[in-house]
């Protein structure tokens, strides 16, 4: 699931009759993003904008650092629905004040009070310039957090300038689904290798961080070294979100297909173009259309990216199953069960179709189950199944929202910053976490008689926008301040049913320098596939595109990965 940065106009002086793209030119003539250390800087004395260090792409490392030893923290409120390392525990009520416990001792707070700057993406509105909540956080930490917040839309470009300008703050957030290009080289040259501080038992210095499941840590390990601390999310990749209430209305029961044929029948039954209702919706994504490849591919046994066949690495494009999936998608499109505007819809339009009931299924991330636009509307997900009726497969995701990397610095400085991150990762139910979520009683939240907690206006304006929860966070649990009990239960049940079906990519955590150059070749394959589905082209171009990808990049990438698999 790619989250594309959208370029915006670069100049304030705008219009010309008939030339609406006038202002786009700046961004695109320079390809906009990611130029570091430009030589034109020689005309600018003392520019120092070059991202010093490594003169060549990072070397592939075959040593994998040991992951931090997972040590679950069991103190805390009992979940209403229990969790495992994969399945999130669910809590229906906020922790009671009396039950809060301290998870961070004073000795574990940062020693120095030097300010720490952080570059963070925020999905919230900007915080007020005077933020008492942040002041209180700083007080507790004994230092000052200088949060440089960027809106999610502009993160990639802003990040590029931060790197190029040499203004790297101490902590930088790397978004898992929107990693900067060539990020292994970037990490190698600018960021600290945290392996000595966090690997294996060293993590015991940071118990809250040790509480984060290993799957998340795996994806903080780049090219063999641990570069950051995780912001955890459930390990599930893309899921097929459904509107169980509408299925019930039409079919008399909630959807639980167990084979491809059952699935197809179900889709056709609920589709009624005249009523303006379509079974499934995809969306326009990247350079092609996202038809639900992950869910449907898993049905046919397509590997998660790279798989192993006869001991050799094989990419999904090279498998028969992938072409079976393609044929199936075409079949579904021809049957008319996809929303007809799928090729031109954006992600949010697709979600809107689901919310309105125009579509009943949509492939999305697991967080879609917690969508709060209409809390009363039930959302659930389809439990995967195999096309032939056997057990299903669920592609494992990165189990991360982001990881936070630390700029190269002295050891004590790094330790202090890790302590800050440890504090922010205080688990659900702890006093610190309660404060980080709700702030100070009276000022940021109020307690209801039944123990429920609600944020005041100040709380809403100051807490989430301060963006500290994107810097570091405890393992995410199923909890919502807005009552969502039904949704949480469904989410939990689905996770339990799917837990055993998780399938990793065979190359997870390995580094291939060539793969970052392959995205347009991959895009070409998906574009050709979309043209085939829409009936505008034959199947041959798809094979052709796969061949191009293979000879141009695929074989090289395979070699690079194989080297590391040893």
């Amino acid at each position: 699931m790619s989250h594309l940065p959208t370029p915006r106009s670069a100049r304030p002086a705008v219009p010309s009759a008939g030339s609406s793209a006038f202002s786009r030119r700046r961004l695109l003539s320079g390809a906009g993003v990611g130029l570091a250390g430009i030589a034109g800087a020689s005309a600018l004395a003392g520019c120092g904008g070059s991202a010093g260090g490594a003169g060549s792409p990072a070397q592939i490392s075959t040593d994998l650092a040991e992951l931090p030893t997972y040590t679950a923290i069991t103190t805390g409120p009992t979940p209403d629905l229990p969790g495992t390392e994969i399945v999130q525990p669910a809590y229906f009520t906020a922790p009671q004040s009396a039950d809060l416990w301290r998870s961070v001792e004073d000795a574990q707070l940062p020693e120095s009070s030097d300010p720490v700057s952080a570059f963070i993406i925020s999905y919230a509105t900007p915080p007020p310039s005077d933020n008492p909540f942040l002041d209180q956080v700083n007080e507790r930490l004994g230092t000052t957090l200088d949060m440089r917040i960027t809106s999610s839309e502009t993160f990639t470009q802003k990040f590029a300038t931060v790197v190029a300008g040499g203004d790297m703050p101490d902590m930088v957030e790397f978004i898992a689904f929107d990693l900067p290009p060539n990020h292994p080289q970037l990490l190698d040259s600018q960021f600290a290798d945290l392996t000595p501080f966090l690997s294996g038992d060293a993590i015991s210095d940071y118990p809250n961080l040790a509480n984060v499941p290993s799957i998340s840590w795996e994806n903080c390990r780049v090219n063999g070294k641990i570069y950051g601390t995780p912001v955890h999310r459930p390990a599930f990749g893309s899921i097929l979100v459904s509107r169980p209430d509408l299925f019930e209305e039409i079919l008399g029961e909630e959807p639980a297909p167990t084979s491809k044929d059952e699935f197809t029948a179900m889709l056709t039954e609920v589709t009624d173009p005249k009523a303006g209702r379509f079974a499934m919706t995809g969306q326009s994504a990247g350079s092609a259309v996202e038809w639900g490849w992950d869910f449907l591919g898993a049905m046919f046994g397509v590997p998660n990216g790279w798989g192993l066949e006869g001991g050799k690495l094989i990419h999904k494009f090279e498998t028969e199953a992938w072409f079976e999936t393609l044929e199936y998608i075409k079949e579904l499109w021809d049957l008319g069960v996809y929303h007809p505007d799928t090729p031109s819809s954006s992600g949010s339009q697709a979600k809107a179709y689901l919310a309105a009931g125009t579509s009943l299924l949509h492939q999305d991330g697991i967080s879609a189950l917690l969508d709060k636009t209409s809390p009363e509307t039930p959302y659930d997900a389809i439990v995967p199944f195999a096309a032939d009726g056997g057990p299903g497969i669920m592609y494992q995701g990165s189990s991360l929202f982001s990881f936070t990397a630390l700029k190269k610095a002295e050891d004590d400085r790094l330790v202090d910053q890790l302590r800050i991150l440890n504090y922010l990762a205080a688990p659900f139910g702890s006093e610190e976490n309660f404060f980080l979520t709700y702030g100070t009683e009276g000022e940021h939240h109020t307690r209801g008689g039944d123990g429920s907690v609600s944020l005041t206006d100040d709380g809403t304006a100051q807490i989430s926008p301060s963006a500290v929860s994107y810097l570091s966070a405890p393992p995410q649990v199923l909890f919502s301040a807005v009552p969502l009990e039904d949704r949480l239960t469904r989410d939990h049940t689905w996770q339990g049913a799917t837990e055993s079906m998780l399938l990793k990519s065979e190359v997870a955590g390995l580094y291939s320098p060539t793969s970052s150059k392959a995205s347009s070749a991959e895009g070409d394959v998906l574009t050709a596939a979309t043209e085939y589905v829409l009936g505008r082209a034959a199947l041959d171009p798809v094979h052709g595109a796969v061949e191009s990808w293979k000879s141009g990049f695929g074989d090289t990438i395979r070699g690079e990965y194989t080297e590391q698999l040893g």
Partner: protein
Amino acid sequence: MNVTSPTRPALPVPGPAPVPAGHGQGTAPLRRRLTFGARARRDYPLALMVVPALILLLLFVYVPLLGNVIAFMDYQPYIPIAQSPWVGLRNFTLLFEDPSFWTAVLNTLEITAVQLVLFFPVPIALALLIHSLAWPWLRATLQSVLYLPHFLSWVIVVGFFQQSLGAGGVMNNWLRQLDLGTVNVMADPDTFILLISAQVVWKDAGWGAIIFLAALAAIDDSLYEAAAIDGAGAWGRFWHVTLPGIRPIIVLLLILRLGDALNVGFEQILLQRNAVGPGAGEVIDTYVYFHGVLDANWSTGIAAGLIKGLVGLILILAANKAAHMLGEQGVYAKS
């Protein structure tokens, strides 16, 4: 009816066609060529006037433009640029060898050509329409309403089109009710250019009319009076006063548009390209986006930008020349 007023009005007024070549400096019959020094002394206040703009351009365009040198290198991010290998024209040849690039170029040119016909005249027509209304309040209302769509972002505009004309949109739902089958204009490669032109007209025609309204306002009323006295009717006045009055600005904007010929809108097309496929939907900017930006292949993007600029330059020079031949000053005239 004898219309005797000339196409070039007797009274000198801003706007209409320029004085013929050779009449630049007043009416002195004897023109000695001044020395450079003399001209410099005479013109230096005017030179001073241009200085602030030049400084801004120097600082914020010319200096950063030096960064475009990476078009000739195989740029590696995150390391000093000097360490990236020099590859000369290879980025350019790679572009030229890619058939998708040529598809994008052809699409771009096609779109520009079509929009020159379908879009360019519309703001002019709108301005003329408004200008011809007798009631000032109607003129004012229309003006204020017409430019509103300009302020909607493309995401919203494309969203509107999808809601109304999309396959699941209002129009098609209606057609389905009537069993008339559906028409999906949003995903039809054959009508794509018409679709995006319609969108551009809706969004920007009103805004574009503003400048023509200014041009129309600059035409001296006494010219109309004179033409009416000479017996010209509404059409005659239009042809002999109005049109010549706005011809210079039309030519000017046309030339500038040609300089921008390879820019046809990025966001608008990006939002709709996947639905019609790259065969119809890829333009140079989206090509660069998908093959340059996303691949972290910055050199490609900058190389494409240089190509666009070069083509634009050629077009502007050519168009300017053509304008001279038609008697207009165009953007730049040596006269």
